[in-house]
């Protein structure tokens, strides 16, 4: 692979990045080729010592998507970030899977529980109307307490979810700097 082929390949692979960032990245590698040639290496030698454009692009894209998710924690951004970090290496899927299952488990069950608590008065009323079980005023009373608890829990879940997602972002950053990508034959 010569200089133009390398740069072109890299350029196509990082198309999703904002134009100025893309430009900046290509500029770095152009500089690298230039200085390498001045030091007497051929373009092919330089390209092969740089490693595959594929791996470089993966690395750049993973960082980019994680930054995006950190700026705006939409579910789409988070899924993208997760996906691109997993893509860094084959084994990374298994490394990331555990923490992610735990995190989504907590978030999902927390929200489900608070939602169910909130609608307990409704359930008590349904019971009153349908008479599925003998109605007791006490049930209604308890259901209001549970509903109040549920409302508090929703507030708590808003914070918990935010906190957990920022933890996930931090973990992904750590993962990027730890998982290969950086290394020969890897």
């Amino acid at each position: 692979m010569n200089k133009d082929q390398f740069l072109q390949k890299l350029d196509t692979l990082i198309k999703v990045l904002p134009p100025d960032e893309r430009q900046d990245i290509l500029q770095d590698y152009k500089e690298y080729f230039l200085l390498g040639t001045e030091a007497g290496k051929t373009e092919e030698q330089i390209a092969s010592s740089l490693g595959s454009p594929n791996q470089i692009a993966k690395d750049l894209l993973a960082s980019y998507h994680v930054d995006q998710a950190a700026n705006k924690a939409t579910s789409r951004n988070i899924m993208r970030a997760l996906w691109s970090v997993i893509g860094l290496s084959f084994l990374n899927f298994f490394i990331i899977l555990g923490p992610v299952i735990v995190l989504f488990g907590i978030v999902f069950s927390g929200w489900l529980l608070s939602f169910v608590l909130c609608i307990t008065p409704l359930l008590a009323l349904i019971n009153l109307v349908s008479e599925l079980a003998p109605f007791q005023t006490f049930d209604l009373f308890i259901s209001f307490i549970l509903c109040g608890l549920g409302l508090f829990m929703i507030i708590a879940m808003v914070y918990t979810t935010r906190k957990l997602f920022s933890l996930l972002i931090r973990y992904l950053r750590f993962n990027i700097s730890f998982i290969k990508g950086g290394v020969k034959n890897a």
Partner: protein
Amino acid sequence: MNIQFKKGILELCVLVLLNQKDRYGYELVQMISDQIQISEGSVYPLLRRLTKESYFTTYLKESNEGPPRKYYQLTSLGKERLEALTAEWTQFSQGVNQILKEGGNNE
């Protein structure tokens, strides 16, 4: 050396080299690859990441020949990071050395 290992170490190397003086990308890559076998292309993504994390800033400087080069300069945040990583590394390598030494005595 183990591949997973090296990437974390790369960050430490970059920080140490920049602590001596400001350097440009090519120089950094060459100095590291002289000592450790790395995929040279991966240093730039690392440099970008660390710049985003404010461990260093960049500036362009004219060179005698050719276009201006992008120099990297360590920030005070970067210095803190360097100290933390150095401490971790020292502790870790001492541990390994100790084990190697004890292993050697038994043979």
